């Protein structure tokens, strides 16, 4: 029987604010355990939360970028459950009035077709601390001891809930990468799943093709990379199909992904689900988000990747493919724009970025902003080539130097003696030398094989260490050979 897969994702994203959501503690990854904690985020008696305005701003930025409607009146609620890494034994979250609702994200599938995935809501909440269970099986009930690190407790966390719009694990994967790209782009989160700044729970169900009603879903947890989300969903898709195929029923439950075994296993059934006893947080006033504030934040929002790609195609006349590649990260596309400001030649900038520079970045596994090369330097170098100060071949050497060590291209060129040789006086003897040394090639040329001229250009270039101006060499060669 043919089944259709239905997937919805709940994605938690830590906002990269300087401080935590409700106190002044620094928000930073990988600090010494419990060094970033204060009486407020430790939930000591009598202390009260105060909302970090910047976190709400970043949340609104994300909501705008994801095309959400932003509620003018939203509020915080308490989600009550016991766990030692949650200092108050309740989490300040949002229940029925989240900051943002009704957004969407467009994904592009490998066959080039596009699909819009709906976003139900995005709400703001505080993150919990971390537990490390020592000894025993690794669960809190069976371990000998538990170590608690509250550095993460109170870090602002956005929960992005999608509509059940995805129809394959591949679509879920694309949705996640798309989400990461846009949140990275607007600078609200680094979205590193390995470090936990992006976490994902997946809901998946199957239904017979053509049916409108959803099947019974399972929720999958414990995936620690985009790939494992895809793998877990692929496994679960197959598992559910087999159960249904054999006349069985899917039970509504939470299942954990076991990466090493490549399987999902039941964690708890629907009956064991928590009753979180949500109620409005009495320590915080409701959030009133004015239209003016949203407009102001919207104005400061950077141009979004799709808009920028379209503009690169339209204004810079870049090929669609190049425009796509160069807008995968905001840093790359900003780099291109800044270089274009200097040299006014988008095609050349794009060529360098797509060839030598991309190669270098791939080899070294670094991002453009982590190299020594600056956008204005690249623009300057392109200007030097266009003016004839250096040859394109020298350009390749120069770019490698700039990526590795940085520096001022004019000075490097001068110091290394890389300035292009264009004077006839200097080049003529070298041309003559090449002709004299290769009588066979001269014969071929004169015999009608005009392409042999390339060989002589190569010889002169070699003799000058690539510095000869190929145009000038060509001119002299033609004249001398015809003599």
């Amino acid at each position, binding site marked *: 029987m043919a089944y259709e897969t239905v997937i919805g994702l709940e994605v938690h994203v830590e906002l990269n604010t300087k401080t935590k959501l409700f106190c002044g503690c620094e928000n930073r990854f990988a600090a010494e355990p419990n060094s970033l904690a204060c009486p407020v985020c430790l939930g000591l*008696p009598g202390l*009260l939360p105060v909302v970090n305005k910047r976190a709400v701003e970043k949340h609104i930025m994300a909501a705008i970028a994801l095309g959400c409607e932003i509620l003018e009146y939203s509020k915080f609620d308490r989600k*009550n459950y016991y766990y030692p890494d949650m*200092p108050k034994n309740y989490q300040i979250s949002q229940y029925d009035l989240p900051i943002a609702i009704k957004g969407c994200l467009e994904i592009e599938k490998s066959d080039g077709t596009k699909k819009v995935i709906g976003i139900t809501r995005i709400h703001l909440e505080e993150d919990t601390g971390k537990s490390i269970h020592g000894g025993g099986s690794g669960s809190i009930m069976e371990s000998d001891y538990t170590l608690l690190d509250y550095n993460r407790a109170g870090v602002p966390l956005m929960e992005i809930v999608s509509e059940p719009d995805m129809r394959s694990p591949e679509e879920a994967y694309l949705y996640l990468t798309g989400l990461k790209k846009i949140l990275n782009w607007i600078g609200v989160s680094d979205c590193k799943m390995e470090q936990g700044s992006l976490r994902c729970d997946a809901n998946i169900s199957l239904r017979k093709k053509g049916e409108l009603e959803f099947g019974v879903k399972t929720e999958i947890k414990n995936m620690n990379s985009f790939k494992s989300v895809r793998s877990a969903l692929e496994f679960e898709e197959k598992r559910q199909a087999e159960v249904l195929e054999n006349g069985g029923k899917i039970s509504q439950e939470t299942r954990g992904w076991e990466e090493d075994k490549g399987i999902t296993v039941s964690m708890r059934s629907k009956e064991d689900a928590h009753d979180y006893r949500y109620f409005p947080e009495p320590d915080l006033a409701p959030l009133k988000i004015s239209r003016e504030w949203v407009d102001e934040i919207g104005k400061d929002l950077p141009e979004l990747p799709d808009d920028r790609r379209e503009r690169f195609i339209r204004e810079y006349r870049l090929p669609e493919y190049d425009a796509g590649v160069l807008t995968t990260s905001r840093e790359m596309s900003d780099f291109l724009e800044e270089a274009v400001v200097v040299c006014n030649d988008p095609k050349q900038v794009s060529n360098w970025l797509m060839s030598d520079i991309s190669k270098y970045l791939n080899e070294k596994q670094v991002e453009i902003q982590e190299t020594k090369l600056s956008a204005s330097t690249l623009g300057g170098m392109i200007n030097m080539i266009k003016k004839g100060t250096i040859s394109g071949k020298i350009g390749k050497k120069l770019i490698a130097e700039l990526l590795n060590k940085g520096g001022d291209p004019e000075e490097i060129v001068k110091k290394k003696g890389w300035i292009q040789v264009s004077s006839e006086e200097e080049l003529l003897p070298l041309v003559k030398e090449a002709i004299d040394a290769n009588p066979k090639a001269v014969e071929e040329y004169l015999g009608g094989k005009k392409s042999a001229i390339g060989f002589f250009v190569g010889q002169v270039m070699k003799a000058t260490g690539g510095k000869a101006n190929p145009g000038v060499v060509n001119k002299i060669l033609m004249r001398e050979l015809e003599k």
Partner: protein
Amino acid sequence: MESGFRFPFLISHFLPPVSRFPFPLSLLTSRLPLPTMKGRYKLNPINLTAHEAHEKMVSGEISSTELTKACLQRISMVEKKVSAYITIFPDLALKMAKDADERLKSGENVKPLTGIPIALKDLLCMKGKPTTCGSKILENFVPPYNATVVDMLLDAGAIILGKTNMDEFAMGSSTENSAFFPTHNPWDPDRVPGGSSGGSAAAVAAGEAIIALGSDTGGSIRQPAAFCGVTGMKPTYGAVSRYGLIAFASSLDQIGPIARDVKDIALCLDAIVAHDPMDSTSISFKKPPYLESLVDVDIKGMKIGYPVDFFGEGLDPGIRKSLDEARRVLEGLGAEFVDVELKSGDYALAAYYIIAPSEASSNLARYDGARYGYRNPTNIDVMDMYKKTRGEGLGREVIRRIMTGTYALSSGYYDAYYLKAQKVRTLIRRDYDRSFEKCDLLFTPATPAPAFRIGEKVDDPLEMYLSDIYTVSVNLAGLPGLVVPCGFTKGLPVGLQLIGKSFDELTLLKVGNAFQEVTDYHKRSPVLD
């Protein structure tokens, strides 16, 4: 984080918990011995108000050290009978008094509270001092921070004498729910002082402090003030910062003063009413100078609402008589009484006993033994730790309310209980708004009966809850309420409650002060020695 304050963030299921704080765990060691003062001081603080003491200190007639010593001496004399304090700081108080005397001598930065000995209800956090909230679960808790109000008192140069007894987590109306010992009513040691701020009210009534701070969630300042014959005020919700007040029910809790007269209440409000950016529910408003505004006040023509429904069945005849007399006194001063309807008050107690426990069930969830406070030493896993720690660390009434609140918030019951109670709350607020269209303030009894006997109601929680019948609706509406002594019945004090519009504490103080200018109930003291 404060230096010297480190958490062992390790839940070990096998190792016994380590004592984390550099002081003995038994509270009584910090309580006893009581301070002993040589000789008898001519000063008896029981006869002194803060504003009088202030004048005497400024004129040099007495020093803060003398006054503080007199309070400590009084404590050593009567505390065995009253048991108002959980912790007393004789050395710290005398050191603070010395500083205050220097301040007074230099004449710089002298505030009305400079040198005045004050007691704090033991749910107000004071840096480095045990803050127990009347509970075993916080018996060894020492906050590394001051509550905002404590900072304000310290800035003003007040002397902190100690921390007063209370019903555990402020849940109760008699101070019998303290995990440590009950406090006795100075007017009759067999009777309760009221609660939950019973220690604060008893301390002021017994002359063991000039002023005491309490907190009021459903009447916890006003009811004990009435029982102990002192003056007490619950300010408007949001007028005083709750930062550092250990929460019972966040949307109802409010800190306020208990004192010997209305002028001292005003003087204290001048010091503690302010917007606090650390408390998102604290409200910025233009506050009047309270004490200054009490000079030459004429309440002639003031319209006082008389909520007929508050004087119906269940009101003790002695209290009714005192209130009738108080009404005549105010009428004699030119105030006009108008009857008003406050029907929704009938539902206030029910709504309160849904909302307050609901919030409490969540607020008190943090006391789990994982980070601070009491932890059961024999637990075998985290669930066992939670169950035993909370089962042993929390008292019966607290557990009762946590269970009530947990139930009311549970899925399937939320709409029927919590949501409904919030709707009732809105109606109560509207009812008050409507009544204030006809009057400037309301006049009601503070309690249905005078102080009851210790043990009389401990086994009947509903009966106990009824002693807050006249006060809870004020918290639900967020309004200010002032209680002033207005008579005696069978030798026990009677309190009159004035309820005002939001942030109109001043009108209450004006009427209360006018009443005290022509009466002397607030000047009478219990005989204890």
